[in-house]
């Protein structure tokens, strides 16, 4: 099933997406809009919120929902640092955090340890003979060797890695994976990541090791842009703020009595589109076969939907919410749920809801059922989202 949501929200005095600072001036993200004036095109720059920013916010909500439902989330993602297994060292912890994964990858602890120790001892000898001053590297190699020796003889080798997570990640990433001591095919790498982390299953990842493995995000999100008919009313204005320091007893270091700074705040009626391909969750992008059992896939789908609900209902997306929480809120929302991909017309266009409804009717000629709903005076955006989730539940997908 494929869910597509078009959201319009009013944001007065917001700083949802700041992009650069020049001294004490923080700039709002802006993008060029093409405007036709007297038959000629010209560009105007309007405030915007990037899809990357919205996607980050969504994934933070997903972390909370997943953990709340007892689903696995890797350490990096749990901290809101979405490195997404980008290299061997960031992949490494996923090899030992889950018991079922550890047992598959480290089947023969003795052989793996002996081969790693051989390479590490060679490196240590080289480092000792080198004319360069590399005491730090020598100390590091010694710590790796010590850990692997303990690993080889440990009663519970997985527990040992968990106890020394940082060193274990480095030695596994930089030696066991990079030197091909562990037999990791692209499929195995994908399977390990997906089993270990709900966020990387849903949000995708790009492992840039050898062999490289990629998985597209199952959700897509557009930029939030001012709606077209009102784009020229959108503004990004700097607001002056001051921070004061008490100056009793004279100047304290370089701190002056009054520090001024500017924050550019945007005001606009924004629109963005969010898509979620529920069928891709828990399924391999290499073999096309499920990696997880049906129950866990259903739970992860539910977490993905709840995270969207939470993000929209709480307006917790974007930056600087603690002092620049936008005044306004969601003004309109449309949702479609289809069997195969279908995207609602972007809410930056005025007739987006009517167009979406009309286009959905075409799907009937393909024998496809669908769900469509729009918020209105009587129906809140939250009620619309709830109806969509109920429809997906009735269809047995969660």
């Amino acid at each position, binding site marked *: 099933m*494929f869910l*597509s949501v078009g959201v319009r929200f009013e944001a007065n005095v917001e700083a949802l997406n700041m*992009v*650069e600072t020049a001294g004490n001036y923080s700039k709002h*993200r*802006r*993008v*060029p*809009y*093409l*405007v*036709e004036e007297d038959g000629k*095109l010209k*560009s105007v720059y309007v405030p*915007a919120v*990037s*899809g*990357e920013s919205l*996607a980050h916010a969504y994934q933070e909500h997903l972390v909370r929902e997943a953990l709340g439902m007892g689903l696995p989330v890797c350490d990096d993602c749990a901290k809101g*640092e979405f490195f997404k297994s980008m290299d061997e060292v960031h992949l490494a912890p996923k090899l030992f955090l889950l018991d079922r994964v550890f047992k598959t990858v480290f089947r023969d602890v003795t052989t793996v340890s002996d081969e790693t120790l051989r390479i590490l001892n060679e490196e240590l000898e080289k480092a000792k003979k080198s004319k360069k001053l590399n005491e730090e590297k020598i100390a590091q190699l010694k710590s790796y060797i010590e850990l692997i020796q303990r690993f080889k003889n440990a009663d519970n080798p997985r527990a040992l890695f968990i106890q020394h997570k940082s060193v274990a990640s480095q030695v596994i990433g930089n030696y066991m994976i990079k030197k091909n001591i562990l037999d990791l095919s*692209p*499929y195995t790498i994908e399977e390990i990541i997906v089993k270990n982390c709900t966020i990387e299953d849903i949000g995708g990842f790009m492992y840039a090791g050898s*062999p*490289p*493995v*990629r998985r597209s995000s199952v959700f*897509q*999100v*557009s*930029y*939030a*842009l001012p709606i*077209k008919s009102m*784009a020229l009313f959108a503004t990004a204005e700097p607001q002056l703020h001051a921070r004061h320091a008490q100056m009793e007893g004279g100047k304290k270091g370089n701190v002056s009595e009054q520090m001024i700074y500017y924050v550019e705040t945007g005001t606009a009626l924004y*629109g*963005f*589109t969010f*898509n979620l*391909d529920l*069928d891709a969750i828990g*399924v*391999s*992008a*290499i*073999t*096309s076969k499920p990696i997880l059992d049906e129950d866990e896939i259903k739970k992860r789908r539910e977490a993905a939907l709840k995270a969207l609900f939470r993000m929209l209902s709480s307006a917790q997306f974007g930056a600087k919410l603690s002092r620049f929480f936008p005044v306004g809120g969601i003004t309109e929302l449309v949702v479609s749920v289809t069997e*195969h*991909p*279908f*995207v609602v*017309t*972007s809410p*930056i*266009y005025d007739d987006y809801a009517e167009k*979406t409804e009309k*286009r959905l009717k*075409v*799907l009937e000629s*393909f024998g*496809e059922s669908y769900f469509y709903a729009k918020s209105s005076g009587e129906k809140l955006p939250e009620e619309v989202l709830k109806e969509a989730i109920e429809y997906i539940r009735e269809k047995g997908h969660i």
Partner: protein
Amino acid sequence: MVLLVFFLKVEVNPTGIIALRALPQSKMRNALRYIPPSTLIGAIAYPLFHIKGERKETLMERKNPKSAADTLRGIFLWTTIKMSGKSKAYGSILKINRLHRGSVESAITSLPFTVMYGERDYSMSIVYLLKEEAISASSYSLKDFERAAWGISRLGSRESVVSVESVESGRVEIHEADEARTSYAFPFTGKEVEGRGALQAVFDWRKGIGSYSNTSFIVMFYPEEEVTVRGALKVVSLDGEEVVL
């Protein structure tokens, strides 16, 4: 000789940014200004695979992984796009300060994108010409391709979400001509062009999709307005518009 082929004409509205990464990748992540044919095939491949419950995106053949869209290459006779308005590349300089494992890290990066949207109505029109014999030999039907066209959800990478506003289909003949008027992109080599537009080297999708380690390029002309093309041309006419192959 006149050849009849199945066509799909797909009207697409962007939801804002169209981000097209140009290879080779670098820290600057340069963007293509115009949408190449390989991206158009990738765009319809995703919903097409979805219809068959196929989730494969990467083909692990030998050492170079390829896009799963490569399996559809033989079905397409030609694909091209018409874009109203001139695209604009825009990128912000990003300064990022963050706390990472106890220490403060600072980074500056730049993200240029190809940006296509505007105050006036903006749309793109994609034409796919399909080989019916190749479709018959595949597990797909013409109806599947039509439904897939309605399901195009993204062009290029990340936030390039689009919505399909209309799909036309049918059969059209390819004829030979010395001159044509077109707004659709076409291969430039061996042709004389009168009118405004831009040249862009794109990956030759006929040699492979999604594996660009050892690829060849074709030079495409992307018209800004309707242009006149002269040469030994292969042309199709769709609703009074001409498409040069």
